[in-house]
């Protein structure tokens, strides 16, 4: 069984690329929660819209347009991010902003309604069927181990991991050093106080939704390129998984969302590999229950101080 180690490496790579996508979406959940303390259940749909926007852009450019591949993908990412930024902004203004200050359950229900609306909105516009995304990025890095098992890292998945890491680093720096980043950290500590001190909180909240939506769009485009199949309902499952990742890492904490996403991806992959793929979700969610039992605030979450 000399194959064990290379198989383990292959599975680790599989899990990492899955986890990277979860992390990208999870950031949207965690940032919104960090600032206004609500779960934006329409976030999974934003991811789905991002994937569709990428596919539509691709079909406008044309698969064999002659443009360099990297440029085509960059345009897809930018257009998708711009469109979902508009959606993120509009969703916040339409569904949540009028409800600010109402009991917590109210915006939650509004979010669920928004999620159902967006699903059907896309289903009407694009059709409810599966849509296929042509395989743009083909080929793989092959690392032979002995002569039996070759670890196979497709470029499309390497791209997921690289882009995710770059965005995470950029986001961390932005939150840490920029004016807007400082303002949003202040808001997450105490929204009302930040408001009193002259921070335009409603702008910060919009910014949070826009950043979350753009990251989700990048996730959507990357996964669409790697997987090749889309339908208007992919946002639901992806949203649930990413939400789990956010809770796992400690909701409200951005590094927590990154860690939670990667951990969830790895847990699912290894459960599928070494237990059975029918039980992989049970293992992943079982892990969530266990972590919440011992660390109710998640891995990197801070205990919530009751704000008075």
């Amino acid at each position: 069984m000399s194959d064990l180690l290379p198989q383990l490496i292959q599975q680790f790579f599989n899990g990492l690329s899955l986890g990277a996508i979860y992390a990208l979406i999870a950031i949207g959940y965690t940032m919104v929660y960090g600032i206004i303390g609500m779960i934006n259940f329409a976030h999974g749909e934003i991811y789905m819209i991002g994937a569709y926007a990428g596919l539509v852009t691709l079909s406008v450019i044309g698969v064999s347009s002659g443009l360099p591949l990297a440029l085509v993908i960059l345009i897809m990412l930018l257009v998708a991010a711009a469109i979902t930024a508009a959606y993120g902004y509009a969703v916040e203004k339409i569904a949540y902003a009028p409800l600010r200050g109402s009991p917590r359950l109210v915006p939650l229900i509004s979010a669920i309604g928004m999620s159902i609306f967006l699903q059907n909105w896309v289903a009407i516009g694009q059709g409810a069927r599966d849509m296929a995304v042509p395989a743009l990025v083909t080929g793989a890095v092959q690392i032979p181990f002995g002569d039996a098992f070759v670890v196979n890292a497709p470029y499309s998945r390497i791209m997921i991991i690289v882009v995710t890491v770059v965005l995470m680093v950029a986001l961390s720096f932005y939150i840490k050093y920029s004016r807007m980043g400082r303002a949003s950290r202040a808001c997450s500590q105490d929204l009302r106080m930040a408001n009193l001190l002259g921070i335009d909180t409603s702008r910060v909240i919009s910014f949070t939704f826009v950043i979350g939506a753009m990251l989700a769009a990048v996730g959507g485009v990357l996964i669409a390129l790697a997987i090749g199949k889309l339908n208007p309902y992919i946002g639901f499952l992806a949203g649930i998984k990413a939400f789990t990742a956010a809770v796992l890492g400690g909701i409200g904490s951005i590094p927590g969302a990154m860690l939670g996403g990667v951990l969830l991806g790895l847990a699912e992959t290894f459960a599928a590999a070494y237990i059975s793929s029918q039980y992989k979700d049970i293992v992943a969610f079982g892990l969530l229950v266990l972590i919440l039992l011992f660390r109710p605030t998640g891995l990197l979450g801070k205990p919530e101080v009751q704000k008075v």
Partner: protein
Amino acid sequence: MKVKALLIHVSLAFGITSGTAFADTIKIGIPQPMTGPATQYGDQIQAGALTAIDAINAQGGVKGKQLEPLLIDDACEPKQAVPAANRVVNAGAKFAVAHACSGTTVPAVNVYEQEGIVAITPGATSPLVTDTIKPHYFFRTIGRDDQQGPFAAKYILEQLKPASIAILHDKQTYGSGVATQVREALSQGGANIVMYEGINVGDSDYSAVITKLRGENPDLIYFGGYHAELGLLLRQAREQGVNTQFMGPEGVANQDLVAIAGDAVEGLLVTLPADFTKLEANKQIIENFNTYGRDPDGAFTIPAYAAVQILTQSIEAVGEDADAVADYMHENAFDTAIGKVEYDEKGDLKHFEFAVYQWDKSGEFAELE
């Protein structure tokens, strides 16, 4: 003012529905997936059933009455099956060309049986459809998994002779049903099954399972389920450099499969109902499809056409009474687009022919000997 306008609309709407209720037509409910991943199968059944209905109506209908199709969406979701079946009942239809998916058909059969609606499925192949309640009013124009499974297994054992086989399924009524049948028939034939595992429908990433498959290194991978999952499996397997022969049941045979899997579809083997469009006796029927601008290709299209033929032949013989029609269908043989049809006491076909097809790179497929 607004309220008044609304009331007028409502009364108009009622007026229209009650108007059609009194019109002299024979209603045929067609509850099929019109949304969701199985939409194509619903489209095939609609194409077959509507073409048959149009052709029969053009010739003056049945006993002087026109057939009226009622299109209803079940989305291939078990939880929407019973509401869809109830809509058939509430619309006043006594006959139905029902449900493409086994998962929706199994719960819906109870409704048809209780309400005495004569329904025929051209798509649901699971034995559970007819074995659990042994219906009197429910029939098929498609073979059962336990006709298809052993056929696939026989082909594998006699033609492909793989040293080891992996079987995957989607844990749903249809997919795991047919996979179980194949597994049983294969193990009776002494085949070496190295892996038997379920995957989750709706997942997008199957790379973990594929890496596991690579570890087992089977000569053949059989997948029980629908095209959406198989398409992803094929594409991701090719991505990891797996070139193993894949095989599946008729649920995977769909042009969307080619779109999702791309080149990776090349070489795929599928057991399908024999190609009824090529039968000499069906020339006129294919002509009808051209006349009405619909596509006769697709695994379930001609079975759906046959379902309407069987219903109308029975109504022609004994009238519109559902009980009489059901009795007549059990007792008589029919000449249809899928050949001669005879039913056993629980509405299953006595004979149904399958064949093995192979896909090429461009997404075309051809029957193998």
